[in-house]
């Protein structure tokens, strides 16, 4: 079996794009923190730091293994496989939710009259191709396209929206007290930052023992800063009220940009950034599912499973919610608590058992 290696830079780009994922579109916190929503992002990063330390410690202690190997090493064959199946389900579910966000977006905002299956079809073909080529190619791809994302985000968000910014939208700060900020920070932790647990399942190919710390933390910082910029921009342009009312605040905020008569309708930038990030997010989830099935069934390759799993994920994304209201409600009401189990509790248990059982190594 050939061993795939990705460099630290590629890893950082992957984590950053994964964190940006669908968050850029949906926003974080579900409008609980109102005018302090931007502070909730910082709180979310602070919550995420210790959890990401656990992830990187696991990855560096068992260097060259992914989560499924680690589970089988620590809990033995049977229990390891049971927990592996739980994690496969989580990756599968996350992938289909992100696909659902994408199809909701195309259906409500971009192509209202086109059947939703049609844009999805081309998308699915693309990530089947991407995942079949493996993580090395995805890494190289993200290394290039992160430049596009950064350019569009920084250029459109900061420079072009300067005339629209209204600083009264975030004043007074701490108006509702600290509690909504902490709650919203928890939501921000579980929606973009904690989802990096998926990377435990695919990062068996990092270069050195030290690189996992660098990859996870630099990815968290870059992704966090981008999300902070985006939520500040949304707040400053459209205000807290309509930010909690709209399904896609970024889209509304950017469409307000108008400079003279010729720079306007820049929503395309949002769609492009979303498309690139969602591609990485769904591909990583799909890769995690296929690698997990490979480890659980003791197969020699994962590539032949990619097409059926991608198709299953897509059809699952069609039935998972009846409509977009349900999907937004799920994302902010149910998902954080459900995901917390996979993002923090299970990794903590694995971490403690791993530290006790393999005390001698490192």
């Amino acid at each position, binding site marked *: 079996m050939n061993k795939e290696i990705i460099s630290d830079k590629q890893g950082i780009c992957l984590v950053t794009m994964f964190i940006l994922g669908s968050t850029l579109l949906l926003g974080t916190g579900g409008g609980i923190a109102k005018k302090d929503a931007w502070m909730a992002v910082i709180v979310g990063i602070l919550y995420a730091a210790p959890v990401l330390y656990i992830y990187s410690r696991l990855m560096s202690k068992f260097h060259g293994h992914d989560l499924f190997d680690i589970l089988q090493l620590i809990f033995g064959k049977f229990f390891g496989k049971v927990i592996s199946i739980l994690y496969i389900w989580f990756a599968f579910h996350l992938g289909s939710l992100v696909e659902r966000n994408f199809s909701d977006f195309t259906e409500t905002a971009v192509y209202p009259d086109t059947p939703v299956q049609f844009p999805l079809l081309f998308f699915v073909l693309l990530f089947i191709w991407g995942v079949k080529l493996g993580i090395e190619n995805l890494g190289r791809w993200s290394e290039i396209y992160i430049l596009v994302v950064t350019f569009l985000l920084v250029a459109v968000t900061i420079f072009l929206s300067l005339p629209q910014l209204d600083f009264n939208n975030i004043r007074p700060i701490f108006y509702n007290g600290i509690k909504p900020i902490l709650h919203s920070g928890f939501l921000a932790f579980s929606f973009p930052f904690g989802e990096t647990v998926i990377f435990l399942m695919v990062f068996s190919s990092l270069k050195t023992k030290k690189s996992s710390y660098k990859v996870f933390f630099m990815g968290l910082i870059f992704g966090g800063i981008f999300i902070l910029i985006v939520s500040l921009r949304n707040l400053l342009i459209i205000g807290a009220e309509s930010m909690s009312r709209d399904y896609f605040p970024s889209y509304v905020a950017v469409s307000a940009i108008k400079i003279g008569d010729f720079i306007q309708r820049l929503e395309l930038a949002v769609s492009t950034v979303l498309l690139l990030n969602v591609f990485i997010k769904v591909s990583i989830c799909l890769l995690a599912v296929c690698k997990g099935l490979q480890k659980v069934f003791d*197969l020699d390759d994962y590539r*032949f*499973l990619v097409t*059926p799993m991608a*198709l299953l994920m897509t059809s*699952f994304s069609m039935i998972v919610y009846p409509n977009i209201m349900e999907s937004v409600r799920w994302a902010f009401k149910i998902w954080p*608590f459900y995901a917390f189990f996979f993002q923090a509790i299970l990794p903590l248990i694995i971490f403690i058992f791993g530290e006790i059982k393999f005390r001698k190594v490192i």
Partner: protein
Amino acid sequence: MAVFGVILAYFIIISIEIYPIVKKKKRKNKALYLIAMGASLIINLLLVLGISIPNPVKPIEKLITMIFGK
């Protein structure tokens, strides 16, 4: 018509992908591939025919609301 289209699409995909799997002579691979493809074919056919499929996420939602309230 749509049902026919779905079946045709799956037939094409399987006929392209099955050859390298069969060549490897591993029964487990072939069985897994066909089971997964069959499952997604059935779900897609039900979707096309407009038959409502039980949502597997509902039990999770019930569990979460049972534990955390609301």
